[in-house]
């Protein structure tokens, strides 16, 4: 399942991270997160993990493998 498949408010865990930059920001395998909002036309996607709020463009988000939980 991809990050883009989750709806606003849903929670999940990261299974695979495509960009080194995301790891620099603290998003690693196993990090629990929640979808907070989506921009106009569903882009970008705002997620929160721990105390971070991060905007990710849809194209990148489509490459992030996640598993839903909660």
């Amino acid at each position, binding site marked *: 399942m991809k990050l883009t498949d989750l709806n606003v408010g849903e929670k999940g865990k990261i299974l695979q991270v495509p960009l080194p930059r995301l790891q620099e*920001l603290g998003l690693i395998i196993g990090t629990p997160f929640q979808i907070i909002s989506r921009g106009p036309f569903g*882009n970008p996607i705002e997620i929160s993990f721990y*105390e971070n709020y*991060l905007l990710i463009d849809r194209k990148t988000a489509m490459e992030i493998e996640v598993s839903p939980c909660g």
Partner: protein
Amino acid sequence: MRLMLIGNPNTGKTTIFNHLTGGHRHIGNFAGVTVEYAIGYYGTIEIIDLPGIYSLEPYSKDEAVAVEFLKKHPPDGIINCIDVSNLRRNLGLTLALTQLQIPMIIAAGMLEEQQEWDAEKLEALLGLPVFPAHRKNRWVPAVMIRTILGEIKAHRLPPLFEETTMAARFSRIDQMIPPISKNQAREKSEKIDRFLLHPLWGTLFFIALMTAAFILIFQYLAPYFSTPLLRGIEGFMKMAEALPQPAIRAAIMGLISGVGSVISFLPAILLLFLFLAFLEDCGYMARICYLAENIMAVFGLTGRSIVPLLIGFGCTVPAALSARGIPAENQRKRTLRLLPFISCSAKLPVFGVLSTLLSPQKSLLIIPLLYLAGIGIGLIGSLFSIKGHPPFLMELPPYRMPRFSDLAHRGFARTSDFLKKIFTALLLTSVMIALLQHFTPSFHWTELSDNSILAHLAKGISPLFEPIHLGDWRLICALAAGLFAKESTLSTLAVLSADLSVFHPGNLLPFLAFFLFYPPCIATLLTMKKESTSSLFPLSVAITHLLIAYTAAFLCGI
């Protein structure tokens, strides 16, 4: 002795730097990129404020240069600035820094927002001295310096965390600290964002805010400061005109008009910098990018491009400067390239006078059409230049009330850095043009402008402008004056052809078209050189615009 301030972006590093050094600094440039570092002194100790980084193996080019600098010139001690309200992410860099094995202390900001953490707990966790550097509470620079000097003298090295990848570091951190709960500031921010990030209401709010700020700055505040200054300049000009020695007279008149052209946009620049600093510090800038990302992506730009583009309606110089915040180089250059297509406020008087001349009834319709034509051509151009869209990743900071002293510090520092860089070149060109304007080819003083070197040059190139009906040397002189400052086009026309009889139905529209598209002023080109770190870039911008202007004028003259 050299100390370095190192930390993630937005950890209050610069505030700490200013507090340590009293704000006296000079700016160093890394070769090849626009990021800068600041050097200041505490007594004889050199303090360097490195740009924000997330790791020591960074992904962006700008950050890579900063890390390279750190590794090439290792400091005697590191002050690692962290934001405790975002502890987990900040510790990623802290763990990486311990591997440099340089004496280090932690300057912990935003401790006051946290209930779970205090300096003692952090010291126990990291095995490093932790110095609370609150935003609100006063802390004493001498104590912070004494703490780090103590570490250096005792040759105490930070405890080594051996993880070698950021992923490994973060999983170590997840074992070290308990999962963090949302704090109050965050919850409040989320509530505000439900309105400000709403696709409809948020966008409307943004447009309203920008329009209001724009009108306030360009219509009321900036003229309030620049009008009396310009009146003073006029007074000096009158005095200079009375000077006996012709060469000195012309040179000084040139100098004064150069200073005048800087002063005409200086208040606007300062106010815009203050406004931008406010948007950055309160956290709204990141929201703007969120809202604008979609539409900007169509044109190969990023959400952040919206800010320079809007400022471009006022003055292209600060607009080009504000493009610095765009992380991806190709998007930054694309934004810079688009800027000259956005008509700055100095073009408006020319549009106004000439459109009335063109058609007194429809002038209010012609002006918006001119703006639209400019933007339209520019956007079509950027459609052709899209090659790949770099990933857009951006942190959304919580909303915070900015401190006025931080804003003022940054606003003034950016303005003066900018002035230092363009002032000399601008003054030199102004003096040169004044000399060309007031001397005949045989180096005699002339009041009659049609005898001057400039007029002779204009007449010389006039055959080139015949096909687009702009062969009259007075028009060429007026356009040339506009290269130094767009507002001078009108004043030059007024000198050379007071009743504007130089215009006739055949050359009016070509002139407007040429004026709309031809290269931006020298100040803008100099700024672009600085912001793109390449002389070729402004040159290619100038040539492109010359070609577009020529074509447009030609088409309008058929």
